[in-house]
């Protein structure tokens, strides 16, 4: 059905292949399966965050607070782990998800009940959540030595050749795919992005749907919080600061329309992987690290221009010969 969207995803896929081929021509090691799997593993967190952000952007909202939510959830579980090493890690994961979802619900409630534009709400909670990380931790870091081996080790456990982190990423992606294509909530998320007025007439509660989108984004942020602190074995106030822009960038490159209603799970996955590949490739091909930022900026602009070209309405095409052409 979505011929056009599929087309866009293929384009993105080709772009990723191109980067891989170019880099591999100079550094054969780069394209080895091991390294590719490492890149995928590295990108898993960005991938799930971008999926959460997609759910929010589809509803014509935006969540600028995801990175702060991640930092707060991550800090809280890390502190819990440091203080009570005997608490089992799965319980900590559940705790991270619940905290994240709770913070997301806070955003969602403000958007739903107080009707504050999402960008304002999350601009506010962006600083509030991060401030709370400082308040909770007193500014202190939780470092590797304070974390229990299980806490650090869980996502590194290799199953069938892939680390747990990758498996979690795959699981989240599959859940998102089902959510977005097969559940009434997922379809409602699309519907209110495409046409909010029509959604009201259709019996969709626009506010509540947005609320759930924020809860989903929050839950993902919470999960990512746990994964982040145990991956980089540090929890601090500055964790993932400024990362919200990378999350949005992954969505945009993946073809999510900032105006809502357009975007797919595979597209966003590819968008995140594209960023992951580029970030990994630059240092390898010996491009000065100082070029990284400009290159990712240019990639974002290029993606927007290409997406806009695809999305542009071709007009009505009244003339018969034009329609035939």
């Amino acid at each position: 059905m979505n011929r056009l969207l599929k087309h866009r995803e293929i384009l993105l896929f080709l772009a990723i292949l191109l980067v891989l081929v170019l880099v591999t021509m100079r550094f054969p090691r780069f394209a080895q399966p091991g390294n590719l799997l490492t890149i995928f593993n590295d990108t898993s967190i960005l991938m799930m965050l971008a999926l959460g952000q997609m759910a929010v952007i589809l509803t014509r909202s935006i969540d600028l607070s995801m990175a702060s939510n991640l930092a707060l959830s991550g800090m809280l579980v890390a502190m819990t782990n440091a203080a009570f090493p005997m608490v089992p890690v799965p319980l900590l994961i559940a705790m991270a998800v619940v905290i994240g979802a709770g913070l997301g619900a806070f955003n969602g409630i403000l958007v739903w009940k107080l009707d504050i534009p999402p960008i304002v709400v999350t601009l506010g909670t962006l600083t509030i959540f991060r401030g709370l990380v400082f308040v909770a931790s007193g500014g202190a870091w939780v470092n590797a030595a304070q974390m229990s081996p299980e806490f650090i080790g869980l996502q590194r456990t290799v199953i069938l050749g892939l680390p747990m982190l990758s498996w979690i990423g795959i699981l989240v992606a599959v859940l998102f795919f089902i959510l977005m294509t097969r559940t009434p909530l997922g379809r409602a998320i699309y519907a209110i992005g495409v046409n909010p007025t029509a959604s009201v007439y259709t019996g969709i509660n626009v506010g509540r749907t947005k609320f759930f989108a924020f809860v989903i984004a929050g839950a993902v942020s919470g999960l990512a919080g746990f994964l982040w602190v145990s991956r980089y074995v540090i929890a601090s106030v500055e964790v993932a600061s400024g990362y919200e822009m990378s999350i949005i960038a992954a969505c945009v490159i993946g073809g999510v329309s900032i105006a809502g209603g357009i975007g797919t799970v595979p597209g966003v996955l590819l968008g995140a992987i594209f960023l992951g590949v580029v970030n990994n490739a630059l240092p390898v091909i010996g491009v000065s690290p100082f070029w990284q930022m400009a290159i990712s900026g240019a990639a974002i602009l290029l993606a927007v221009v290409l997406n806009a070209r695809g999305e542009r309405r071709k007009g009505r095409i009244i003339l018969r010969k034009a329609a035939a052409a």
Partner: protein
Amino acid sequence: QDQTRIALVVKSLGNGFFDAAAKGAEEAAAELGNVELIYTGPTAATAEAQIEVVNSLIAQQVDAIAISANDPDALVPVLQRAMQRGIKVLSWDSAVAPEGRQLHLNPSDTNLIGETIIKLAADHLPEGGDVAILSAASTATNQNAWIEAAKAAIPEKFPNINLVAVVYGDDDSVKSTEETRGLISAYPDLDAIIAPTTVGVVSAAQVITDQDLIGQINVTGLALPSEFKQFIDNGASKGVALWNPIDLGYSAVVLAHALVQGAEPGPGVTMSLGRMGQVTLDETSAGPMAVPFTFDSSNIAEFATYF
């Protein structure tokens, strides 16, 4: 109310290194008596945020500011204004340009640090080999100085060590992790990664641990024992160096107090560092505190309990 108020301004709050320094500063304040210590700093390590902190300290009319600067130049105007308003200013750890402070306390001798970080790697590479440096922000003054010193030391003292790359992890664990990975894929024959930053060295050691490269690539550099102990234990690192941050904070406050008491710093002047001995200032009114100390499997457990 003739208490002496001394502000210890750090690069960013929450950093274990600076928290340890604050401990030493408290110790000095207690020892000197009648000193009120203000431990402060921005949350993000940027010059702009640090300027706001200094502005509010000027407004509070503190007696002295001892700062570890996020930028050697950007803080000069605001610190000059502080000095105009009668506040004594010194920098420690990470320097401010000479016109923005009365003296600077280096944790150690720059050349010595540069040499030490290479030596830490070279000691375990008798045949020589490839090493790479993972630094903090590309703008960090002290790191850059050490790297320059290290580069200068290699040809004479470690001729068979080959420095293949210098990359920057911005004292950010994600960036540091990515850069480490980049180094590993780009330089298959890499033997050691030198990270003269406490954030970078942990990230690098974690990557080596994760990728099962323990024994192939040795991670070394400057690290806080408490944060780094496990990587000495698991073999990802054979040893790291650092000076004692507690001593550094202590010395900074002792010096600040001396300035408030009317000491006149200048090239060639020798000043007391209390229990740490003395420091002699060079032509830019800067001086080293002590030699760097090496931690390895033999002593890390002990020091990890202190800082």
